[in-house]
């Protein structure tokens, strides 16, 4: 038997996650926000905050086809081939509602295109090791293009690197530490998300007000960037961040933590969150304590939007839109047709405000549905997404 290796060829960028920990600004930590995250990268922060103001290019009303500050385009001539196409997808997991909505949206998008005759998707169930095998397996399946939603940035890098020479690779949502994929697609990003919420609180909460920051768990880059941008905003403000707590994304734990803070501090004047899944639990903690719900940051999850409307909250919902699950399919077809795509494809990332709430809130969707699915025009909506 000959000796073979499925390992990425030498010379490609070695994955160094901790290399991201470049110069963290030595910001004041007086407001209770603690040390700045090792994930904070000033240049990325500046870029993302800048992008928020830019008008995206692309067809109006179809944000999943738009690109913010597209910049360098990838030349895709070498991948051009005739249909029909066989697309493949290595999915990190469908282990949370956000990914559920996205996954349904992607399947519906695939169904739109007659020229995709085969679509092979493998679910890594949140296991890095399995996803590595999955990617290897898919590269041998005769796919015309490979879409990857990596489970972990650093650890999936070698597998993606290995796949790149064999077929066009499209990465979306979480990234990888190599630029070998033809394009990397995701919304503006975590800094913008975190800043949107924090800036809202800085504006709405009176100076000296007590703010509680709720984070899901440490160490996930998309979440770390959200917090680090919020920290920058809070550190510059007059607000007093009385606590930064981890909720594990667990509603019961969230509610308990918030209740404890209300008890201990008598009054909480604002709540920041790095993800909205448990926002309703936080709101209820105030209700159950018989308090006015202070300004709060949520996300575009249905139950929160509904609560917002019903209780007339002072709130904002930054988003990390699930419509990004449509884009990789569109990108794959463009690539296979030889059309150019942005090397780094940034999708617009709107925030929902009290003014725009009505346009995003759709009654009769399930509580954990994400409003920015961009799926309303897809066949099967709303039933396929659990609505009625």
């Amino acid at each position, binding site marked *: *038997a*000959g*000796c*073979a*290796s*499925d*390992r990425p060829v*030498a010379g490609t960028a*070695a*994955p*160094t*996650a*901790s290399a991201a920990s470049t110069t963290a600004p030595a910001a004041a930590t007086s407001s209770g926000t603690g040390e700045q*995250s*090792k*994930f904070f990268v000033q240049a990325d922060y500046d870029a993302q905050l800048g992008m928020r103001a830019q008008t995206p290019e692309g067809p109006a009303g179809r944000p999943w086809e738009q690109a913010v500050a597209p910049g360098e385009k990838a030349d895709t001539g070498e991948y051009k081939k005739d249909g029909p196409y066989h697309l493949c997808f290595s999915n990190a*997991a*469908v*282990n949370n509602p956000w990914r559920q909505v996205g996954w349904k949206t992607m399947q519906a998008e695939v169904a739109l295109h007659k020229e995709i005759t085969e679509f*092979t*998707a*493998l*679910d890594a*169930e*949140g*296991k*890095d*090791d*399995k996803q*590595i*095998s*999955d990617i*290897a*397996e898919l*590269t*041998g*399946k005769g796919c015309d293009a490979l879409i990857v939603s990596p*489970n*972990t*940035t*650093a*650890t999936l*890098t*070698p597998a993606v690197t*290995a796949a790149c020479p064999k077929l066009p690779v499209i990465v979306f949502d979480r990234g990888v530490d190599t630029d070998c994929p033809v394009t990397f697609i995701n919304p503006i990003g975590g800094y913008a998300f975190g800043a949107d919420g924090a800036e809202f609180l800085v504006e709405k909460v009176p100076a000296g007000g007590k703010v509680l920051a709720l984070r899901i768990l*440490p*160490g*996930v*880059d998309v979440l*770390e960037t959200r917090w680090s941008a919020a920290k920058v905003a809070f550190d510059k403000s007059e607000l007093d961040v009385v606590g930064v707590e981890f909720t594990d994304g667990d509603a019961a734990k969230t509610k308990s933590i918030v209740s404890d803070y209300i008890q201990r501090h008598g009054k909480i004047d604002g709540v920041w969150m790095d993800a909205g899944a448990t926002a309703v639990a936080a709101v209820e903690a105030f209700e159950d304590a018989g308090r006015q719900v202070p300004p709060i940051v949520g996300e575009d999850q249905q139950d929160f939007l509904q609560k917002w409307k019903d209780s007339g909250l002072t709130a904002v919902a930054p988003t990390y839109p699930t419509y990004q699950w449509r884009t990789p399919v569109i990108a794959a077809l463009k690539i296979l047709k030889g059309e150019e795509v942005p090397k780094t494809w940034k999708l617009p990332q709107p925030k929902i405000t009290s003014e725009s709430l009505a346009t995003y809130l759709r009654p009769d969707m399930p509580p954990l549905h994400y409003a920015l699915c961009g799926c309303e025009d897809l066949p099967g909506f709303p039933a396929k997404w659990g609505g009625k």
Partner: protein
Amino acid sequence: MTGQNGLRPARPLAAPETAAPAAGPRGRAALAGRIGSTQVIYLALAGVMLVGWLLVAVDGGNFLTLETVVGIQQRSAALGIVAVGQTLAILVGSLDLSVAYLISLTSLVAAEVMAGQDGGIVPGVAAVLAVSALAGLANGLIITRLHVHAFIATLGTALIIRGVVDHLYDGPAGSVPESFQRLGYDRLGPVPVSALLWAGVAVAAWFLLRRTRLGYRIYAVGGDEEVARLSGVRTGRVIVATHVLCSVCAGIAGLLLAGRLGAGAPTVGTDGGYDLESIAAVVLGGTALAGGRGGIPGTVGGVLLLAVLDSVFNQLEVNAFVKDVVRGVVIVAAVAVYARRTARRRSR
């Protein structure tokens, strides 16, 4: 069951004059041994492969391609190595719920010590072995010296390791040199190096159980700790040694995963579900959860069965929820079959 006349099988007495000849226990033992639980698991494995092959063929695919064969091996290597260690722990009458967190920890230790340098490989491997042996030692000592039930003791160490890992790490860290990544990616024809590593660990453990004093005593302690102790076995040492071996297996799995991921990752062990899945694979392979009965070949079969199932699911693109349901049913059904066989044997 026995003869028409209802007489039970002749059971020889110690007294020579009433001793029954050949038809005695030897014959029965041979009969019971003919289709052991190990054979059952391999029959099941063959069955699943056949069904899988059929289903995939009907689906218009080809089950046994190079990619799937390599995939099955790659997918089972890490779980296989942990399960071998878990087999030892279960055989001695214990169990280890801390392996998942230990795998995360050791993947990080490996990647941090290696720091991308070839020169770091030897110290990295040594550090992993040391750390994991230490964790096993702690498990073993808590169980034997402090008399804490293995379930709670290893759950406790799991939480402690988790605390340490979560405290020190926010995400993947360290890096593994290219040469070490070959462990995760190279293959000899259709056989990945990782599968060879697994085979090596399995053979070593098998040899240990069959040919060494420690192996004999693992069975003895698992069979009946008091009997072993009164027979002069230092049972505490056996349990501690077994836990050290079990943890070292988890450490080796951590090394392999670091090689595959190119870095250490604080969640690679728990995401992989290596704690409960390794236990499931072991009992699927016919090792008694109570200890003292079973062995490595069964576990290898159990792990392969899970991997083949996974591969079939993958090819048929069955969704993860269906997989969980099927896995749950398969595990319970397999153990029910073993239980039936044991009960039949006992009732004779």
